Every structure is written in C-alpha cells, then in structure tokens.
C-alpha cells in the first residue's frame, strides 16, 4: 500500500536544482544499477509467470466474468471518485488560499489533517457508524474522504505559487472573474491536478483494507482473497498482472494529460502578494462546505474511535500486547526506512550530480515500481522465495526488501532534494584539500544532506507503520504490527479492542502530516 506521503513526489519539482555534470564514480553507478535491477524483479516476475503459464491458461484466467466484474468495479471507482476528488479539492484549495474565508489557516490545516488517518481506519469508522454501508457508492464516499488531501496539498501549493500579475493581465484584457479562473488559473493548476489525481488513482487501485470493510471488491481485495485461499496460484498472479496493467494505464494517461508545458513564472522579480476574493453572501455556504468536509473526514473517525474507546473502557488497553505491537512496528519501520534510504542514496546522488540518459532510465524504472501496489510486490516476493530461495520465505530480510521496494521513491525524493542543496563545489573543495573521493563525499554531501535523508526516512517509516497487505503476506510468523492487530480485531468485529491501535497509528502519523503541511507552505515561499 503506497500511502499518505508519496505526495512529496507530486509537490516537489522533479530533478530540482541540477548543477554542473560530473562523471559518476563507477561503483556508484554499479550500486544504482543493482538497486534498480532488484526493484524491477516484481515486474519481471509478473511477465515471467505469464510467459511460463502459457497463453491458453492466461487467457482462460484473464478473460472470465469475475475479472470483468472486478475491472468494471475498479474502473467505475476511479472514474467516479477521481473527478469528485478533483472538484472538491480545487474548491477547498481556492477557498482556503484565495478567498477571504474566516479562519482560512485553520481550515487549510483541517484539509490536510485527514492524511494522518490510515485509509482503513476511515473505513472502520464509517462501517461502525453506518453498518449498512457497502458497494460502489460507499467505496466512492470513503475514498474521496480518505484521499482528497492528496489533491488538496499540491493544488493549494500551486495556487499559492501562481503569479497574480497574470490574473491582473487577463482582467486588463477584458476577462471577467469567472473566465479568468477558467482560462488562466485552472490551466496553471493542470500539473498539480494531474499529479495529485495520479496519486489518488494509484491508491484506489492499491488499497485493500478500506474496501474489505465496506465489501467492495477490487483487484487488490480479490488478489488477497485468492492468495489466502489458494496461496500463490496462477489465478492470483494473473489478477496481479491485470492490476499492474491498470497502474501502467494510469501512469500513461497522466503523462499524456500533463503535457510538456512549463508553468513556472516567466520573468524575474518577486511576485506581488495575491489578493483574496470577497465571498460576501457566499461566505456561509462556503463555511458549511468546509465544515462538512472536516466533519466527514475528521469528525467521523475521531468520534468513532472515541466512542469505541469509551465503550471498551480500560479493558481494551492490553498494555503488554499493545507494547509488543508498537515495538515490532517501530523496529520494522526503522529498519525498513534505513534500508530504503541506503538503497536510494546512489540513485539520488547520480540524478543530481551526473544526470544523463542512464539516470533517466533508472529513475523511470524506480518510478514505475514505486507505483505498483504493495500486494503485487508482496505476491512476487512470496512466489520467488517459495520457488527459488525457500529459506528466505517469511523472514525479516524479505519483508524489509519489500518495504524498501515499495517506499524507495519516497526516500529518493527527499534525498534528491537535499543533495541538490549541497553544492558540488564543497565536494570538490574537500577533494582538493586531500580527501579521497569517498571521504570527500562523506564529509560534505552526506553530512549536508543528512536532514533531508532523515525526513525521507521518517516518510518511509510512516508508510511502513500503516502498511497492511504486504506485511500480512510476508512478515515472519508471529509478527503482529499495529496495523495487523487493528485488522485482526476489527475482522473479529471486536471494534473496541481495535480502537487503541487506530488511535496510536493516528497519533504517530500526526507529526509527519504537520511536517508535510509546513513543507508545502514553505515551498510556496510562506
């Protein structure tokens, strides 16, 4: 489950701050190549299985009513939920950034805060509040509520960065406010909307827990079902193949829609401060929209968790069990984050210091792999370990590799941004002062990029903490993370016992969500 904070990717400019090229040391290139090859394993595996299974079996497994049903479900979900999310988040972003809405700053934070709540906790809250909730309608409702911040964040950041001079220019050319928004503002938000929509779409494809609660079948839930009933049969693998194709279609669509345009400010000079539009009589309905959004996305989960905690009393706080789960989660999160960051380092260094065709190819590979649902990566690793290296099956090593593959892009984004801020001249100065290359790298670039690396590790750790699907399929026997414990209790309809786990997961995600919020503000220069 690639989750919450892949956002960074959609907010941060790609390849920011490229400096003069330098030749990459062969060992760095080798390391980056190795990481990329390992990252490609799940994708290669899907293809390999398909080839091995033979066309007849493949077509028998793929072209059947069940797959058609799942495809219709998934496509409808994406086609309905994504546009609603776009409209909602553009409206919220405009209200909080460009109107004179009272308390805009507080509302802005309330629009980002739902990120701290794992999607399956949203779903848990809704199903216990409205037990009859199920099917496509419910799927769309909870998806929009759980994922709209993914679009809100980049869109509001882009809105803040817009040069108000352009809107003035359009007004001077005779365009009324509505047409200025349609012809000048909206086109400039296209990149943010495309990136955010892609992220939402990929999450819709990859999410498991959310849809199980409300009994809505997607490819991901079907793959896990299939896996649980027949282990790693070809049926599960072929479903994974279709799911991967869906992801690739989304990636391709985004590339097509995004286009080639540059949206940055043309020209120099500081942008004038933006003026906020007067809402006038519309203030009250606008406030109601924001209040309703906050109520649905924050009120419902918090009220539900609170209600279950109150109902469960002190009995649900089984401290030994919770402590154990917390300890295991933290350990897995820290180890996975470390591995992902170390694995991302050569790639990040090359992409800033020695960009070229090879680097673009490797980066493209990592990008695609990072978009794969956790369930696909997990399935691939299960099959490979079982068939090729059985001793590695359900070991700490395998689960950490899975985490590293899933969250590599997050680590990469943060590292790349921080290396871009460490001038290469320092590295050269260190070399000229007699440090051999590795030591020069260590004493300059690595030291300076440490804060960025730490931020990246925190993002990866957050993802791992709330990860459910891959952990369930790959973790060593006896592992029980917070997410797993939450899942098994709520699976037994013991909603009260699940509540403390939900609360802890939310509490641990809050600081990072705040960090993300602050970062997006700062990037827009405020």
């Amino acid at each position, binding site marked *: 489950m690639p989750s919450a904070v892949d956002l960074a990717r959609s907010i941060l400019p790609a390849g920011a701050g490229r400096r003069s090229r330098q030749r990459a040391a062969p060992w760095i290139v080798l390391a980056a190549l190795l990481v990329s090859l390992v990252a490609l394993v799940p994708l290669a595996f899907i293809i390999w299985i398909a080839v091995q299974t033979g066309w007849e079996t493949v077509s028998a497994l793929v072209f059947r009513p069940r797959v058609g049903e799942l495809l219709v479900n998934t496509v409808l979900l994406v086609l309905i939920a994504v546009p609603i999310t776009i409209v909602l988040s553009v409206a919220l972003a405009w209200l909080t950034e460009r109107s004179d809405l009272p308390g805009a700053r507080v509302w802005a934070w309330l629009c980002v805060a739902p990120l701290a709540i794992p999607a399956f906790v949203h779903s848990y809250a809704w199903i216990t509040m409205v037990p009859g909730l199920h099917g496509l309608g419910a799927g769309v409702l909870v998806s929009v509520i759980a994922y709209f911040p993914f679009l809100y964040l980049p869109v509001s950041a882009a809105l803040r960065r817009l*040069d108000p*001079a*352009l809107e*003035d*220019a*359009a*007004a*001077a*050319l*005779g*365009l*009324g*406010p509505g047409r*200025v928004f349609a*012809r*000048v503002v909206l*086109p*400039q938000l*296209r990149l943010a909307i495309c990136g955010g929509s892609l992220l939402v779409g990929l999450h819709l494809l990859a999410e498991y827990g959310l849809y199980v609660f409300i009994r809505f079948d997607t490819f991901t839930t079907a793959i896990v079902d299939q896996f649980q009933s027949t282990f790693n049969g070809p049926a599960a693998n072929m479903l994974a193949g279709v799911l991967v194709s869906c992801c690739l279609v989304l990636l391709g669509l985004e590339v097509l829609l995004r286009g080639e*345009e*540059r*949206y*940055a*400010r*043309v*020209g*120099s*000079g500081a942008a004038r401060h933006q003026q906020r539009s007067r809402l006038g009589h519309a203030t009250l309905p606008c406030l109601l929209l924001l209040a309703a959004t906050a109520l649905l996305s924050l009120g419902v989960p918090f009220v539900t968790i609170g209600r279950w905690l109150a109902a469960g009393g002190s009995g649900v706080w089984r401290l030994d069990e919770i402590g154990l789960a917390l300890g295991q989660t933290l350990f897995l999160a820290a180890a996975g984050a470390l591995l992902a960051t170390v694995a991302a380092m050569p790639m990040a260094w090359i992409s800033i210091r020695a960009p070229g065709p090879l680097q673009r190819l490797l980066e493209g590979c990592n990008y695609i792999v990072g978009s794969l649902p956790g369930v696909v990566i997990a399935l691939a690793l299960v099959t490979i370990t079982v068939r090729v290296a059985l001793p590695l099956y359900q070991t700490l090593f395998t689960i950490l590799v899975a985490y590293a593959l899933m969250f590599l892009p997050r680590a990469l984004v943060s590292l790349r941004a921080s290396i871009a801020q460490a001038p290469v001249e320092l590295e050269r100065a260190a070399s000229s002062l007699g440090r051999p290359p590795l030591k020069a790298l260590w004493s300059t670039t690595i030291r300076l990029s440490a804060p960025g690396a730490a931020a990246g590790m925190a993002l990866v750790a957050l993802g791992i903490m709330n990860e459910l699907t891959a952990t369930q399929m790959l973790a060593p026997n006896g592992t029980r993370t917070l997410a797993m414990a939450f899942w098994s209790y709520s699976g037994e309809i013991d909603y009260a016992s699940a509540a403390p786990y939900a609360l802890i997961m939310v509490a641990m995600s809050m600081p990072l969500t705040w960090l993300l919020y602050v970062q997006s503000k700062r990037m827009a220069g405020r």
Partner: protein
Amino acid sequence: MSILELKGLYKRYGPVAAVAGLDLSVASGSRTAIVGPSGCGKTTLLRLIAGFEIPDQGRITLGSEVLAGDAAAVPAYRRGIGVVAQDGALFPHLTIGDNIGFGMGGGDERRAERIVELAYIVGLDKVVLKRRPHELSGGQQQRVALARAMAMKPRLMLLDEPFSALDTALRASMRKAVAELLEEAGITTILVTHDQAEALSFASQVAVMRDGKFSQVGSPRDLYLRPKDRMIAEFLGDAIILPAKIADGFANSPLGRVAVDTRERRDVARIMLRPEQIGLKRTSREGMSGTPDMPFGEVTESEFAGSMCTIAVRLLNNADPPDAAAIGNTPLILRKPGMDAPAVGEIVRLTVSGKAHVFA
C-alpha cells in the same frame, strides 16, 4: 484635450497612505511618465487606474466615463485599459500567438491575421508565434506583452517599469521603439518608472512622485532645468547647488556672475546648475592674475572611465559669496569627455553656459 483625469485620489493600506491626494490630467495621445523612488506609491497609482485596486477617495475619469468615484468602480475587465507589467506577465501555458490573441474576439481567421499583424507591428518574427513564453528573451517577452495589450485597442496604455528587466543597451532601443509605436497608434500612454533618464526621454509630461504625492508635474525640460526643490533636482540628475545673492537677473556666486532665470532680487538664495553647464578652460597660476572676478579652480581628482572622465574641481578664488565658507572646500564634480580632460593639479578657468535656476 485631456482624456484621463485624476481628482483627489487616496489609497491607504492599513496606516500607510500609498497614494495621498493626487490630481493629474493626461492629454489625449500624449505620453506621461510617473517617476519616483521605489515605495513612493507609483505602482499603486497605476493599479488604481487599471482597476486592480479601488481608491478609498477621489475620482478617476477616462474620456467621459467615470471609472472610479463615489464608492462605485468599473471593474478592470470593463475598462479597456491596456497594461504591460514589469516582467510581461505572459501566460506560461499558452503559445506566443495565443498570448497575443488572448483578449481578442472575432472569428479564427480574422484573429490569426490580426495576431500576425500585431507581431509585425511590435517587431516580432512570425516564427516565434508558435513558441512558449519561456523560450523568448526578456526583450521579446516585453514585445509580446505590448502586442497583447494593443490587441484590444485600448484607450489608454499603462506601462509598469516595462524596461527595467532588460539590459542597458536593449533598454534604450526598446524605449524608443515603444514610444514610436504608441505614438503611431495614437494611444495615450502612462509609464511608471524609477529611472529618471527613462522618464525624461520617454514622456512629454513627467510627474515626480514622492510619498504618495506629486512633487512636481511638467515637461521634461522644465523639470530638469527648473526643479521646484533640491530633492527633485537631485533625483532627476546631478546638480550643483550654490549659495548666491541675486539681483537684476544675475547671481553673485562662487562661480562669479551667473545669469539666472528670475528678475527678482534676493540677498540669500540657492541657485542650481547642471554640471554640463560648466565648461573648463586650461590655464596656469600665472593666468589667474589680473582677473579677480573670474572663477578659477584646481583639479584635485580625475577618474578616467573611457569616453567620460569624472573630475573634481576645487574653487580657488571666491569673490565674496554670502556664505562662501559653507561651500569653500567642497569640490565641484564634473563629467567631461575623457579625450582632453585636465589632469590632477592643473588650474582651470570655469565658464557657465545658459542660466542658473533659482530655488524658491
């Protein structure tokens, strides 16, 4: 015949009055420059005229239409006033052609024709029409912005420091080109700038602005040679300001007897000369004798800078100016052609051409 009238314009931001009571009248088809140091409120004034801001008080009239006044204001998009911003403000998501045609109505064919025509008028090649703004140089971006603003045939064109982002050589030629272009199209123009040379060379009417008010409005020549006070004098160029006693159209000053632009009589006055009014003639210590009422000086510094040379001249014989001691040792700073500039230590005789200006 005036087309734009500003009356008692006020605009406050919190406690700061960015525009504090302005009156201005702009003649139809003329070019007016508003010049002032940064922060004087000139951009706010421009935004008030364009309709991006609404004045707290006062009235703006364009032709026979009241644009703003008595708490009612015509929104920017109904004013028909062209604006060219500092950096062009081109739409980054549109091609150059679409940028130029942004405000145009009409059919596609007519539109395309008109875009090409406008591009030609502002001196842009047809091939750039397919490009994007970021592929153009700063000068070309300004031309596009101008063409875009001209496309809607504005009654009034506002230029907000449009040349300040360009390098020096390009700036002068762009300025000339734009001035000619707008003149030919007969569009009344207001230019806002902090560059006095730009203001003086561009406009037929110059308004010097400070602290939200106009300190002086007039023709460039008038402002340069007859500024109202020392601040305006020094803002518009280098100035030599001397104490003097004036009577009968002449001043008795450290530079001797100098013609002034007033007939009144005053015992204590300040006169202003532009450095280029002062000429230097080489002489020697011996040459000084016998001409007590002629001003002489000694070159104390000389800084060579190619075509021009900056020279400091210390006055040697002060006849008897009213408060000679005050300026006695302050050298005059003059700029002379570098070819034949006197060297440090040489004695020169100073001559004054034209009249000195007497501050009120």
